[in-house]
């Protein structure tokens, strides 16, 4: 009886959160119906005409959709790969430092960019790579003509991946550094007595200690292959680089809120949500099976 009494309180505690969740997460899910309608804001969700899969068919016929999906995939995969590798290398280098004060200083500073928004960061990136930016000033000193980096479709993806990795590498390294604190120092000593040099110590002791973490992070990032980073792209791109820089999220934004094609934008959004959902589900399954990782 007493336990049932407590359960009542538990429901009460969950109430505000659940109301919020229903209002702002679950109710919008019903709006997905729009993707299968020819939605007309005047008629609303209940009176709009149903068109089945027409919006999806139309979406895939558009040239933009193929470009956008390809761009999203390339940018996201690039970010995943380099956001795994660069922090790994950084963590290993940091782990090799002897001066603890220097180590602490480096760590403190490299976390910082993560906490600044892409709005702030892109103003800085544009300041540095823009036509009148530092990079052009410097190459100008060597007699090279200034380039419009931000408007060059050929390098826009590399710029996106590069700046994202630069912004996040310190933050992403935290988890590797934590894994390294768990390494038994005896391992290093034993290996050194066996005559291992610095490089061999890194290869035989440090790297194996990080393998599981890398694999786990890699598996978990599978769900992000369609998340190329709206904030970053939206704040850095311009019509000149749509061909290589436009991603699903920015496309949905332009279709939906700027061109007011509600149904088409919802269909494109749903396409992304469903694929991401399936991938995340698979990745959590894999993480559980191979690394014993559970969310809760």
């Amino acid at each position, binding site marked *: 009886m007493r336990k049932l009494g407590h359960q009542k309180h538990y429901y009460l*505690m969950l109430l505000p959160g659940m109301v919020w969740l229903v209002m702002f997460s679950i109710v919008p899910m019903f709006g997905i119906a729009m993707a299968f309608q020819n939605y007309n804001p005047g008629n609303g969700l209940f009176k709009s005409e149903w068109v089945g899969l027409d919006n999806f068919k139309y979406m895939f016929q558009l040239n933009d959709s193929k470009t956008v999906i390809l761009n999203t995939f390339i940018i996201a995969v690039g970010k995943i790969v380099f956001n795994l590798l660069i922090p790994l290398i950084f963590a290993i280098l940091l782990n090799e430092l002897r001066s603890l004060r220097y180590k602490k200083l480096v760590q403190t500073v490299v976390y910082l960019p993560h906490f600044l928004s892409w709005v702030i960061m892109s103003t800085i990136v544009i300041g540095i790579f823009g036509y009148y930016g530092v990079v052009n000033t410097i190459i100008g000193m060597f007699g090279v003509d200034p380039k419009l980096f931000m408007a060059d479709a050929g390098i826009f993806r590399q710029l996106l991946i590069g700046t994202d990795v630069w912004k996040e590498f310190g933050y992403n390294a935290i988890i590797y550094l934590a894994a390294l604190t768990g390494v038994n120092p005896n391992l290093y000593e034993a290996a050194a007595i066996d005559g291992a040099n610095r490089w061999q110590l890194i290869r035989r002791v440090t790297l194996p200690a990080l393998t599981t973490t890398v694999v786990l992070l890699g598996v978990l990032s599978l769900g992000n292959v369609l998340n190329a980073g709206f904030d970053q792209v939206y704040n850095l791109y311009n019509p000149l680089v749509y061909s290589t820089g436009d991603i699903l999220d920015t496309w949905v934004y332009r279709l939906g809120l700027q061109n007011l094609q509600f149904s088409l934008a919802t269909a494109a959004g749903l396409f992304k*949500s469903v694929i991401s959902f399936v991938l995340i589900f698979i990745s959590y399954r894999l993480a559980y099976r191979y690394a014993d990782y559970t969310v809760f």
Partner: protein
Amino acid sequence: MVRNKTLGSRTFEIANIIVLGLLLISCIYPLWYTFCVSISDKSAANAGLVTIFPIGFSLSPYKEIINDRLFFNSFWISIQRTVLGTGLSLLITVLMAYPLARPKKDFKARNAFMWILVFCMLFNGGLIPWYLTIQNYHLLNTIWALVLGGGVPVFDVILIMNFFRNLPKELNEAAVVDGAGPWSILFRVYIPCSIPVLAAVALFLSVYHWNEFFNGLVLMNTSDKYPLQTYIQQLVVNIPVGTNLTPEQYKKLSELSNRTLNAAKVFIAMVPMLVVYPFLQKYFVSGIMLGAVKE
């Protein structure tokens, strides 16, 4: 760590110090650069001459900002949003985390709620349905659209829940024996025991609210309702969406900006983060670890 003083080892060490030093500079340089541009002479800054040190000296952008009503207005909206959003989310998150941290025999419906939460974390209706929903609630142009529109921070609920679950069971039992009900156990035992994780979550929430620009852009119709990041975004980054932009036009557009003034605004927007950051550093590191490693 073993020290072997071979030549190779020393070379590596020096190279390592230099490489890490360069990385360190690369992370601090943008802040420095922004600051330098903001206090430099206007024409030098616009011509892109500022690289390492400010050229000339002028505080006129800062003087101009002092009279900019719209800037302070958006600053104030951001503060309100961050305080309200962080406080509300933290309270609701903690309230949800406690029941979900109970063992299943104490709270039978636990797993059902858990699945709803996880489903909502992984799947969403997408941009347009979300926008229309908020429009239907008549929240557009209100601070509540910004505070509530980001949704329930389910990930933070799970983070706190995992922390609660790892607190010793005896804590709960002892409190029950002393006659405490769920509310006093939560507020007088569990919360005081969880300050580090709550601080980490509060930090994540406030960083989110301070940095978020998109909800402000989409959900607010007039620029006097924009939070700071949206205000800056509109000011600095926004290049008009035209389909037939040529590289020359793009160049013209980037010439138009008043770089010293913009840099000063960006710099001021960074200041709150820079001030708070050193105090919270230890908390966010522990917060990430909680999210990553369990038991």
